[in-house]
């Protein structure tokens, strides 16, 4: 909100610098985002008077103006339409810094020849002086400004741009800010006199108010102004509105805006003639009731909308927008002025449903104290009278069914100590609260009761009072201490650490971490199957999505990872290995979706294709399996790889990763059609592991096993095996011999040297016993048993 300091000075004396004031306000919660100094660059701008206006010899639209600055006269070229002899104007000498009317930038005024005539200065518009955006004509100054005086003697201001938090609707006003400054600087606040001469009829004879929905409208004040004269408001009022960023319109509109800026209370004026039955009724809308609003649109309402009606029909949407039929127009003779209080919720709901936000509705939504209405009504009526805008009726109609109970909130020395961490005496607490306008009274030993002032709506509990105290004391003055309370017990951060370990091992193996969006589209998910079908559980949909690409919660994370590979291959990046740890969302009935955390890895090549010492090595299944096994080893897990049928993969090269009967992941060569769907060239291998399942196994306690003290014996054997016997078949058999502590496949051969339909598998077996040194003949015996078993189960023979 734009806050001109000159206006604030009407209510409070300010004797500190702008920067210090900004610091204090910001510290107290009213963040000053910017200070605009008006007149800061006016050191060569003076009050002048136009002595003569003559036509420009070479241009029809330009004129030559002679300007008197008292000590000297100047002739300048000017194109403004409102040049008038005798008018007082703001005159800038060369060297003055003015805002360029076209570029909007501050520039130094230079002497110039305009159409052959030398011009030695400039008569300024409001825009050139930085007062407003008005560049239609020159600024005309009041006649009582003295010729030759610097303009800053009469004008100029500092405009604070303050961000108001939603709890402080009272500070969306000059008086609100001024009260804060008074409390923060220890100065008194001056309430303006609101009295005025009442000359019209008794207001009750002109209008009556009935509130049928007191839960939504606690108070409604109304006054009537007759014999209205619609003329522009005086300059001082226009200047203030302009400084606050509002456009002056006409006296009665300007008065309502002025009072809203001054008190924070929105007002609305009706054409009294259009209010039928001399009656205002505040009521809920009937379902499907309609009305034309000020913007010319027909609106349809529901029962939860609040309307202002007369005896016959709706005339305004309460707190949001007036009705077209009751709009004040040029011929309006009598005005009904509304100053009312509405519930936050009804305005918020209404503005949202009707897609109608206004300055008034945004204030009501934040919550205004109903006490404000009466003061604002009085002020507006007073200003109408003062401006001669009409004859004001006697009294104010005040319908107040929702007067809130005066509720005390208690605060004690202990409360302050307990929440702020330092000692304040009750006297000091009371001083802080009183400075902000709270009434305080004793509430037994060590405590006081505080009552919130009529303009505040946000003080309802002890913690609120403690904040008020802290604001006045200054947040800067709160001491610093470190936590001294006992340390919490409990599980700590184990899953987080586990995830971090997974990231570390993936990064150590050369994988780059990525993070992708959880939202996707059905089209992208369909790319994961070669047939273009949606696989897996039906994904959850959003109700209000931002775009079609972000309509569904993904049920798998692999689509995102594949998309990233495709995109980066386009950047000619080779040798890409990616991983992501993220969530897939699996819908559940009547519950939040299950968030499956998955580690997904993707490999497109292992060695880059341009190193002088080695050949490029494309990705393959066994490299990727090695990565998975390394991750599993890090977790202390031995899993089984079982032939799988996940449709995203080449079915000849795909495995489920099993822990007993539980599937903890999948690995394989991505199906060529799926690769094509994601614009990926050549082959790529992908795996997924379920992080929570890994964690639950990895976190099982470890038991130490002593290493054998006795030497081991290694033997190499070459087996001739049927081509369809798998490594796993052999492995399972070997594992039955506990004395074989380790076995490794060091050679696998198919070709001329072995018969057709066979393969040769070379194993290195390590034999070791825990309690003795193995003798050669014992090892020979075991090896015979192994061969016998392999021969019996798989027809394996020893290759000679």
């Amino acid at each position, binding site marked *: 909100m734009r806050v001109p300091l000159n206006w604030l000075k009407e209510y409070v004396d300010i004797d500190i610098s702008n920067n210090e004031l900004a610091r204090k306000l910001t*510290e*107290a919660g009213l963040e000053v*985002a910017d200070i605009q100094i008006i007149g800061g660059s006016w050191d060569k701008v003076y009050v002048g008077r136009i002595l003569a206006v003559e036509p420009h010899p070479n241009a029809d639209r330009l004129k030559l103006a002679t300007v008197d600055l008292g000590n000297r006269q100047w002739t300048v070229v000017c194109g403004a339409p409102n040049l008038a002899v005798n008018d007082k104007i703001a005159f800038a000498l060369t060297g003055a810094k003015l805002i360029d009317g076209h570029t909007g930038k501050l520039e130094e005024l230079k002497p110039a020849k305009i159409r052959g005539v030398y011009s030695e200065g400039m008569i300024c518009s409001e825009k050139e002086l930085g007062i407003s955006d008005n560049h239609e004509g020159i600024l005309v100054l009041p006649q009582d400004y003295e010729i030759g005086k610097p303009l800053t003697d009469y004008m100029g201001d500092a405009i604070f741009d303050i961000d108001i*938090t*939603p*709890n402080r609707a009272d500070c969306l006003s000059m008086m609100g800010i001024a009260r804060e400054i008074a409390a923060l600087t220890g100065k008194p606040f001056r309430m303006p006199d609101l009295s005025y001469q009442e000359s019209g009829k008794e207001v009750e004879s002109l209008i009556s108010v009935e509130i049928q929905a007191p839960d939504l409208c606690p108070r409604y004040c109304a006054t009537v102004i007759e014999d209205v004269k619609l003329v522009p408001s005086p300059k001082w009022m226009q200047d203030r509105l302009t400084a606050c960023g509002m456009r002056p319109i006409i006296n009665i509109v300007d008065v309502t805006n002025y009072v809203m800026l001054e008190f924070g209370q929105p007002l609305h004026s009706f054409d009294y003639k259009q209010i039928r039955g001399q009656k205002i009724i505040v009521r809920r809308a009937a379902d499907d009731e309609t009305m034309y609003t000020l913007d010319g649109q027909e609106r349809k309402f529901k029962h939860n909308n609040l309307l202002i009606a007369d005896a016959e029909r709706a005339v305004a949407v309460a707190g949001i927008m007036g009705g077209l039929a009751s709009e004040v127009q040029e011929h309006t003779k009598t005005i009904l002025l509304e100053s009312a209080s509405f519930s*936050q*919720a009804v305005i*918020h*709901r209404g503005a949202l449903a009707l897609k109608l936000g206004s300055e008034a509705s945004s204030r009501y*939504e934040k919550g205004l104290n109903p006490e404000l209405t009466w003061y604002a009504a009085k002020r507006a009526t007073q200003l109408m009278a003062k401006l001669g805008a009409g004859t004001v009726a006697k009294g104010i109609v005040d319908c107040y069914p929702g007067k809130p109970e005066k509720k005390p909130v208690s605060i004690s020395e202990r409360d302050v*100590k*307990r*929440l*702020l*961490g330092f000692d304040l005496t009750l006297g000091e607490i009371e001083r802080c609260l009183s400075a902000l306008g709270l009434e305080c009274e004793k509430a037994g030993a060590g405590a006081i009761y505080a009552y919130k002032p009529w303009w505040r709506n946000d003080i309802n*509990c002890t*913690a609120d009072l*403690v904040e008020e105290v802290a604001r006045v004391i200054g*947040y800067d003055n*709160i*001491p*610093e*201490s*470190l*936590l001294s*309370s*006992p*340390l*919490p017990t409990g599980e*700590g*951060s184990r*899953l*987080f650490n586990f995830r971090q370990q997974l*990231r570390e091992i993936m*990064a150590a193996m050369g994988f*780059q*971490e*990525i*993070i992708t*969006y*959880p*939202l996707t589209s059905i089209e992208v998910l369909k790319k994961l199957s070669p047939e273009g079908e949606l696989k897996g559980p039906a994904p*959850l*949909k*959003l*109700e209000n999505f*931002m775009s079609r690409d*972000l309509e569904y*919660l993904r049920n798998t994370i692999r689509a995102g990872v594949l998309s990233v590979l495709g995109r*980066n291959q386009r*950047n000619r990046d080779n040798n890409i*290995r990616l991983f992501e740890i993220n969530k897939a*969302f699996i819908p559940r009935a009547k519950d*939040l*979706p299950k*968030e499956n955390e998955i580690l997904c890895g993707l490999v497109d090549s292992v060695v880059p294709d341009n190193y*002088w*010492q*080695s050949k490029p090595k494309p990705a393959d299944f066994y490299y990727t399996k090695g990565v998975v096994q390394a991750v599993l080893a890090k977790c202390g897990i031995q899993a089984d790889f079982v032939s799988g049928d996940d449709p995203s993969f080449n079915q000849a090269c795909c495995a489920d990763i099993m822990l007993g009967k539980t599937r903890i992941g999948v690995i394989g060569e991505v199906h060529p059609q799926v690769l094509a769907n994601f614009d990926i060239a050549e082959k790529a291998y992908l795996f997924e592991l379920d992080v929570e399942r890994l964690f639950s196994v990895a976190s099982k306690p470890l038991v130490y096993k002593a290493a054998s003290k006795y030497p081991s014996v290694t033997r190499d054997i070459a087996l001739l095996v049927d081509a369809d016997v798998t490594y796993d078949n052999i492995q399972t058999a070997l594992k039955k011999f506990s004395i074989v502590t380790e076995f490794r496949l060091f050679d696998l051969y198919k070709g001329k040297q072995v018969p057709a339909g066979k393969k040769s598998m070379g194993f290195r077996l390590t034999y070791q016993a825990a309690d003795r040194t193995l003798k050669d003949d014992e090892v020979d015996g075991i090896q015979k048993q192994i061969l016998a078993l392999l021969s019996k189960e798989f027809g394996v023979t020893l290759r000679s």
Partner: protein
Amino acid sequence: MLDQLEEVATQANAELQKASSAEELETWRVRYLGRKGQLTNLLRSLRDVPIEERKAAGARANQVRNTLEAGYTAKKEKLDSSTTVSIEGDKIDISLPGEPIQIGRFHPTTRAIKEICDIFISMGFQIAEGPEVEWEYYNFEALNMPAEHPARDAFATLWVDYHTPTGARPMLMRTHTSPVQIRSMEKIKPPVRIISPGRVFRYEATDATHEWMFSQVEGFAVDKNITMADLKGTLFEFARRLFGQDRKCRFRCDYFPFVEPGVEIAIDCFMCGGKGCRLCGNSGWIEILGAGMVHPEVLRGCGIDPDVYSGFAFGMGVERIPILRYGIDDIRLFYSNDLRFLKQFS
């Protein structure tokens, strides 16, 4: 006799200096210390020296022998150790590029989260996490933001298409990490010190400074006698550890519905030192944290008596830290996953 000794010593020392190979050194050894070497001969001739001279000459002769022997050993070691180095033909081009061993990197968000959490963990906080798809209750109501609360306007929400039989629409993508406060306090009783990193989502048009998905770290501590001074001390300490011990911190009142009193913490701009620049929007300060004392209604809602217990809570944006630190000018770079961006964060 003594003169002869000195002459041999000087000559032997000079030659030892010059010896540059194992062969030369061996020749030298034979010449002076060998069985028929010059010094050996001199020692042998000692017995012909008159008795009165013999004592002094003997002593000197032994001294010279010790010196030469020590010199020999030292030289031998030196030559031995250098022989392995320079066989001309084996010299390799050490400037050729090494094997391109690929290093993986963490996403910059992961790094920032880790860095933030590590500081709090060192202060006794523990990590808790919550779901990214949340109930409206945890995201808003329990945090003192009932329906129609004006502060909700700051959280443009992505709603899940899920309706209860009564027509309510209670499921959403969490707009902040604060629901974890509620979920944690429902489960664990004080003392609690929780830090909770996670992703959050807003219905938002994206541009260089706005992204619909971003990360936050939430934290809170609840126990008897936790004060705003503890909040200030803890979070200032955090800010200094993260941004440097000589950073100045600003502590000012701010408003969040789930805390009272509310606080915003800023540090003086490390680009301009507080004078005002583009980075800090000319204010000299960079806002890093929102915080406050947990609102009594929030505590009560979690079954914790606000008259007995108190606590502070805070939240911060994560991407902001690498953005500030590395001068990243577009937040959309974080989740577009262009490796040319990601690879810069080693």
